């Protein structure tokens, strides 16, 4: 075998494991070819320095099959790049998924009354009809198959996906009320604006020229890669009334800003449906919390919004879709749906529900590629293990478990370390992110920097964000409210002084705050301060693992209780003493 340059290849880059994980050697000359082949049918689980791990799951294969691939294509790609024969069990699994996928179709009923679950395979229909979770949604036979009531469309798809029988939903969509709009050539600040090539590709993959088998699904792009713009591109393609669901009010406002900044829509076309304002317009932005809010067992806000003739629904950060939203989304199946996310991994393992209710993955772009192309900033992660002062060490030893976490997180020795870091990054824009308000307030006071917490009024938040964006504020402290969807284009340094550490999402989101491309091309740096030999260090181990799995460079250093460097194993802290 030869590489792209014609040079002979000593060994092939891929090893297929019997548990259906696939290992891909990064240093191999065929790496890029194999990676591109894998991207279409396997999920990237880990991408550390030398060897990347992909997972071949039922879901990833359904995604591939729905994109037009066949089992033979998948096996051919595996055999082409695998250094050892593909295990028979894996090959069998791939073929099994092909047998299952597309075997069931959901179309309009021939008599126009509801929908029709049908198949060429009588055995598949029999098997499905005997599946306990599916039976409640079958409404009498229509040979060959069953009538389905439109209100059960989502629930049926969800149940079938769980049973391992993904259904091909080609029953079509409601067109929605028309809304003419276009993307602008120049944004609000007068700078030239156009969608990047990969954003165009993502929109095309989702929209599929308006075909009946497209118009739903998920676009996976890393933080900072411009998922919002993909959403705007989808709106331009659909030309219809659109409902946008976001994770927070800050994110809601950011969407509003982006829509008005980059599309031809007027302020009157864009509404906000939040706790403060309930304004339904042709394009309405709301939050998941609003939709899932219940009053006397009724989802009043959802019902209010559901009355409107939406032609497209956009789910921002779809991997965070709260569990009650699945039930509500199940009733929105007649509308085109676009999910936007940085990862398909869900902490609750409900990725299958996303597939069934929002749709298959339509587009994916590894962050490394975007980093190489300069679309997102290069980031490095640094952990500084700070010694606990003597008195606090004693308190820590005597404390209860729950209290220990907080004692470690609020280690006062972190203040001099932050001081050192800020001195080093005096020309940069630094976000200090923390979990505990007391600690954040002390830091804010110490550094005379503004702090944004959950209590900060929206207007004040906007003002501070704006000042930070304008460069008037070089340092901004934020509590966990800053995790999601705040767009701070010039933040290139983040210092995490405390956190929950366990959650992969939180880490990804916090890192995402600094990944947006820098105007001067500067590298982004993500510092985490943890107290040495404490629970916090144990938790930080998980974060380290996650970030290394994502392929980030991770360095560790130590600091004394007074903030001075200690045992300088890895030269990662730019301490002034050392520079002198």
């Amino acid at each position, binding site marked *: 075998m030869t590489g792209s340059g014609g040079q002979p290849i000593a060994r092939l880059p891929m090893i297929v494991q019997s548990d259906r994980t696939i290992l891909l050697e990064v240093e191999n000359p065929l790496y890029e070819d194999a990676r591109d082949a894998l991207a279409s049918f396997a999920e990237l689980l880990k991408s550390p320095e*030398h060897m990347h791990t992909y997972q071949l799951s039922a879901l990833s294969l359904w995604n591939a099959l729905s994109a037009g691939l066949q089992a033979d294509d998948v096996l051919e790609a595996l055999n082409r790049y695998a250094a*050892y024969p593909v295990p028979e069990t894996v090959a069998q699994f791939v073929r099994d998924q092909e047998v299952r996928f597309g075997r069931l179709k959901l179309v309009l009923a021939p008599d126009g009354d509801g929908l029709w679950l049908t198949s060429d395979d009588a055995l598949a229909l029999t098997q499905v009809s005997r599946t306990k979770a599916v039976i409640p949604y079958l409404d009498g036979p229509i040979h060959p198959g069953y009538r389905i009531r439109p209100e059960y469309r989502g629930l049926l798809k969800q149940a079938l996906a769980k049973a391992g029988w993904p259904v091909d939903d080609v029953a079509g969509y409601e067109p929605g009320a028309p809304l003419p709009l276009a993307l602008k050539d120049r944004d609000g600040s007068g700078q030239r604006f156009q969608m990047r090539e990969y954003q165009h590709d993502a929109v095309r993959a989702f929209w599929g020229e308006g075909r009946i088998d497209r118009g739903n699904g998920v676009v996976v792009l890393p933080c900072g890669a411009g998922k919002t713009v993909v959403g705007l591109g989808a709106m331009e393609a659909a030309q219809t009334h659109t409902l946008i669901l976001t994770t927070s009010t800050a994110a809601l406002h950011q969407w509003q800003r982006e829509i008005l900044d980059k599309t031809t829509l007027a302020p009157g076309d864009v509404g906000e449906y939040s706790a403060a304002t309930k304004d339904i317009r042709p394009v309405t932005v709301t939050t998941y919390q609003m939709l899932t809010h219940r009053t006397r067992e009724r989802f009043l806000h959802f019902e209010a919004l559901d009355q409107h003739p939406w032609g497209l629904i956009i789910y921002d950060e779809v991997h965070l879709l709260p569990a009650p939203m699945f039930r509500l989304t199940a009733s929105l199946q007649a509308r085109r749906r676009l999910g936007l996310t940085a990862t398909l991994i869900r902490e609750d393992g409900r990725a299958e529900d996303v597939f069934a209710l929002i749709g298959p993955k339509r587009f994916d772009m590894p962050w490394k590629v975007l980093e190489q192309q300069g679309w997102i900033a290069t980031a490095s992660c640094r952990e500084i293990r700070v010694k606990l002062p003597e008195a606090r060490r004693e308190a820590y030893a005597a404390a209860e478990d729950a209290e220990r976490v907080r004692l470690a997180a609020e280690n006062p020795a972190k203040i001099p370390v932050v001081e050192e870091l800020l001195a080093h990054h005096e020309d940069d824009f630094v976000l200090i992110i923390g979990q505990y308000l007391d600690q954040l307030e002390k830091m804010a006071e110490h550094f005379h920097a503004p702090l944004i917490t959950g209590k900060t009024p929206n207007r004040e938040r906007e003002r501070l964000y704006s000042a930070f964006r304008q460069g008037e504020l070089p340092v901004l402290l934020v509590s966990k409210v800053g995790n999601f969807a705040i767009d701070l284009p010039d933040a290139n340094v983040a210092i995490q002084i405390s956190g929950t550490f366990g959650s992969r999402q939180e880490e990804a989101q916090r890192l995402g705050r600094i990944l947006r491309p820098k105007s001067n091309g500067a590298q982004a740096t993500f510092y985490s301060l943890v107290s040495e030999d404490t629970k916090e260090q144990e938790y930080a181990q998980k974060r380290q693992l996650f970030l290394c799995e994502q392929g980030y*460079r991770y360095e560790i250093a130590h600091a004394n209780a007074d903030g001075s460097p200690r045992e300088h*194993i890895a030269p990662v802290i730019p301490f002034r003493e050392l520079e002198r």
Partner: protein
Amino acid sequence: MNPALRSAISITQSLSDIERAQLQETLGATARDPVSLAHALTSPERVRQTLARLSQDALDALKTWVLERGVWRSAPRQSRLAAGIEELGRRGWVFETAYGPYRRTAIMPWELMPSLLENLWEIPWDHLSSPGQERPETPAPIWSPLIHDIFQILSYTRREPLLLTTQHEVYRRQLSKLESLMWERRGMSAGATVRHVLSLMERLDLFEMHQNPHRLQVSPGARRFWQSGPRGVVREFGEYLFDPSHHVWPILPWVALASLLPRDRTLNIAAATAWLSKIGLASIQNPYWLDQAMAELVIFDIWDATGPSQGRLTQWAQSGLSGHFEEPDPQSAIVQPTGEILVPPAVPLDERWEIDRLASRVKSDRVSIYRLDQAAVKAGVRQKLDAAQHMEALTTLTRHPLPDNVRVNLSDWYRALGRHRVLEATLIHSQTPEDSRDLETLLGADALERLSPTDVIIPAGRVKEILRRLDKAGAPMLPDIFRPSEGADDPKKTNDAARPLRPEWAIRLPGHDAARSPDTDEFQAIMEQAMFGSRPVHLTYHVPGESRPRSEVIIPISVEPQWVQAYVLSQRRYVLVEWKQILDIEETEGPV
């Protein structure tokens, strides 16, 4: 292990340098190292040439060896079979294995079986086989099901010794865990696999037994086992599997026949067993034994059942049994910044074993995954490693240097775990504080420190002297050191090393008896004279099992290169006495 069934390399490795030189000359080999000699010994071309020059007795002896499944059960002295074996010895095929001074057996390497089968009989392949899917000739993978399973069990046992019931069986709880670690085999229960592999491993002396509680632990030989590489593993495995005393069914001839099968055919089991039975292989058609043997062959990844009554050797067995393995790829393990160590399939087995020692197991698959975590550091501390040694050991095994964050993590964990240690101290406990104070006075400088009003620490290395001195000073005490965690002494407690090490069976060239002393020629001359003159002689000689030499008046009947056959006058019976047993011969006066 059966000393009569050995592999060629095992035989050539056991020979002395002088014997290897002699064998090289006999075989006309290009080199005298064990591998070259083994290769020359089993080369099919050389086998063919040698067979063409053999007498009928030697050919018959070879047929007997094949039909008796790779051994000669009994070869009466001065029989045609013995003559045939002797001739084979002169050709460099037969060796002698000795266990103790008097027990000897003639052996041939088991690898000769296929060539002999092929050359001594006309194999009717058209009748015995059917067309099958053609298989390419590829080297056997190093990381194969059998090696994987042995490795998994050893790796598990290294971390958690296998506890034994009173029937010397591993506890069910641990068996279940081992079952989950086995390579998945089609249609074969993991329980059966574990039982067979455990049995194999015990025979290969990969375990050593300890008491209190009864348990199997990994023997020091395990390291040597992995160092011998896949060929060494197969060699040892073959000596176990093909041992005629291991299985009633003739596994070695069967596997030899299957190994000769053309690559595009499969063996018809009924026809093949009928043919082997026809040429004289006993019990091959017994259906019960056949089933048992086939199941074992499937478990050990030797047999691939291609149909209800058809099959052939697996790809691994086809190449592996002839020593054709993929080239190992040393230092190809990868340490990721996540702390994971990925061990590709072609990593040498000894490197894999070393990685298994230095890191925690995560999963075993084609690429096995280990992790450098706190558990790995704990294991390292127990092995008396420090961070630098741990990292250095890893660096010699991996393709890339250790990532910085992994180095820092290891250093930090070693520092954290090394700050406090549990130390063992030897102290003298007294009944009362007054007694203890008196004792302290008697001890003088040997009282290192007082731990409590009744306990004084003394130097562990001077216990005997201190006790002697205290005894003389009027403070006698029992010499036993009491360890509270051990409880009372168990009177039935036996030595931990109760299990003998694997017996060392010496192998030598036939007639190449180091015990033949310079006196032998003189003794032989006296005996021959006595024999021709029918004169009795006074013989003093060693008898196996007796501590004192025996002295008898005998008449020599037959004088042979290795022994003398004699008639013992006082007992009125014949005996065979080896030359080396003879201590002295005195001529008596005149014929009887």
